[in-house]
């Protein structure tokens, strides 16, 4: 479903993604973890068509993505941004934010879809007519997830989708993502610093360090500590250390 080959991205004369390759089958999920500032969000943005200065190959369903994406692309591929506050228009109500994609794509039953999307992400219906600044951090993040889901995409690019959520809401969102994957064969790319979240949802994991994907391994190997790169080993050790009682 997704093929990324030798992706390179630079800002000015600084290369921040240095030849990254991975592929994900339809209905599978790929996790990306690694150093802060190593290029994870930059990869997702290029895949989502939000940055037009990259080299290499990005393909969805075998079809190479053009630098400029046709409008239909954004119905099939949706992204949830790392900083929900910045990605939600501050002067639009949640209702307006959620209606936008369905309107653009001429979808029916918009009202019903909004009601459903809000309940899917465990937001009260009362949130519908508020503005983003009238919601808590985690509530805003859920609006961003609802907006991505509402147009029935095939691929979801998720950048730290649960980092602002308490673990009970996180569990509901992770279960929802599993259910959607099962029911509709959605394909996910999930960026997170939480290895337990990554291993829960993703079968395969890529580890980034300083612009390179230094290791790819299965979630089982990550769980079992069969890591080969020092960065992966360190991230895992710290994560397991925290899981033990204080």
């Amino acid at each position, binding site marked *: 479903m997704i093929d990324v080959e030798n992706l390179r991205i630079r800002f000015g004369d600084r290369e921040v993604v240095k030849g990254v390759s991975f592929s994900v089958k339809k209905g599978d999920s790929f996790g990306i973890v690694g150093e802060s*500032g190593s290029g994870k969000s930059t990869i997702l943005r290029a895949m989502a068509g939000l940055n037009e200065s990259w080299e290499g190959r990005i393909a969805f369903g075998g079809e190479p993505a053009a630098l400029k994406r046709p409008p239909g692309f954004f119905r099939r591929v949706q992204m949830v941004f790392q900083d929900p506050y910045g990605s939600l228009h501050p002067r639009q109500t949640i209702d307006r934010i959620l209606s936008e994609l369905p309107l653009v794509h001429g979808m029916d039953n918009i009202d019903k879809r909004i009601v459903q999307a809000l309940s899917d992400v465990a937001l009260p219906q009362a949130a519908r007519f508020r503005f983003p600044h009238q919601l808590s951090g985690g509530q805003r993040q859920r609006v961003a997830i609802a907006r991505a889901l509402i147009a029935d995409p095939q691929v979801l690019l998720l950048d730290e989708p649960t980092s*602002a959520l308490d673990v009970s809401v996180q569990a509901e969102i992770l279960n929802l993502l599993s259910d959607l994957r099962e029911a509709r064969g959605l394909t996910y790319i999930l960026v997170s610093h939480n290895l337990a979240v990554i291993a829960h949802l993703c079968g395969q994991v890529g580890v980034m360090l300083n612009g390179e994907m230094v290791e790819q391994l299965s979630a089982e190997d990550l769980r079992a500590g069969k890591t080969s790169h020092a960065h992966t080993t360190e991230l895992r050790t710290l994560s397991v250390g925290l899981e033990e*009682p204080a």
Partner: protein
Amino acid sequence: MLVDIQNLRIAFESRSSRFEAVRGISLSLGAEKLGIVGESGSGKSLTARALMKLLPSNAAITADRLSFDGIDVLSASEKQMRQIRGKRAGFILQDPKYSLNPVMNIGRQVSEAWRTHKGGSKKQALEAAIHLLDQVKIRNPREVAASYPHEVSGGMGQRVMIAMMLAPDPELLIADEPTSALDATVQAEILRLIEELVSERNMGLILISHDLPLVSHFCDRVAVMYSGRVMEELKASELLNARHPYTKGLLNCMPSLTHPRDRLPVLNRDASWLTA
């Protein structure tokens, strides 16, 4: 007592409705590390903002006591609050990138935070800022100092905010999800830095976080919030053995790296938690 909060209430009123977001919270803090965990939307950020007198204008606030180092925040003037904010008390907001000035480069923002407190020349301040960026493990601090907020990653933005708040040696640090965008190695370094400030300079810390294991390992005490109230307060090291059903429910929802589960249990919210 550095921070003393008694019976804090925050409500939002409109023509047709009234919603009480914080419903009688009491917390106090000395030179120690207090964690606040709990439900999304339970009033954690509002409580922190109330202490810095940074609530939205449509919020109605009351408290039997709300004080910082003996200063009554409710009656303090804006001028008095400005003496506290960013100097005596650092506040790392939940959306760090949106609390940075988008049109000022990062080096200048951090160096001004340093300079307003410590004085010195612009050049000295910039060197100090670069040192601070290095302390929060930014890879190429000089280059990053010259960039603008939209040019840095989520976790780099968080670290810039941390550097800015630590610059004036605050007596209190309020950190709202300060490390949620950091990988575990950088997170460990930042926490070590904060720990140093707490133990060497007697700084007080309020750490708001959804990361229960982190709070349990790092803090001294933890308050668990649900729906505008504190459900229980306990020793952080005891968090994993909490007795309140809400806290137990939360702990049960966490995915684990070492103990995989097919499906995560969800929380059954009990109406009695709202009033108990």
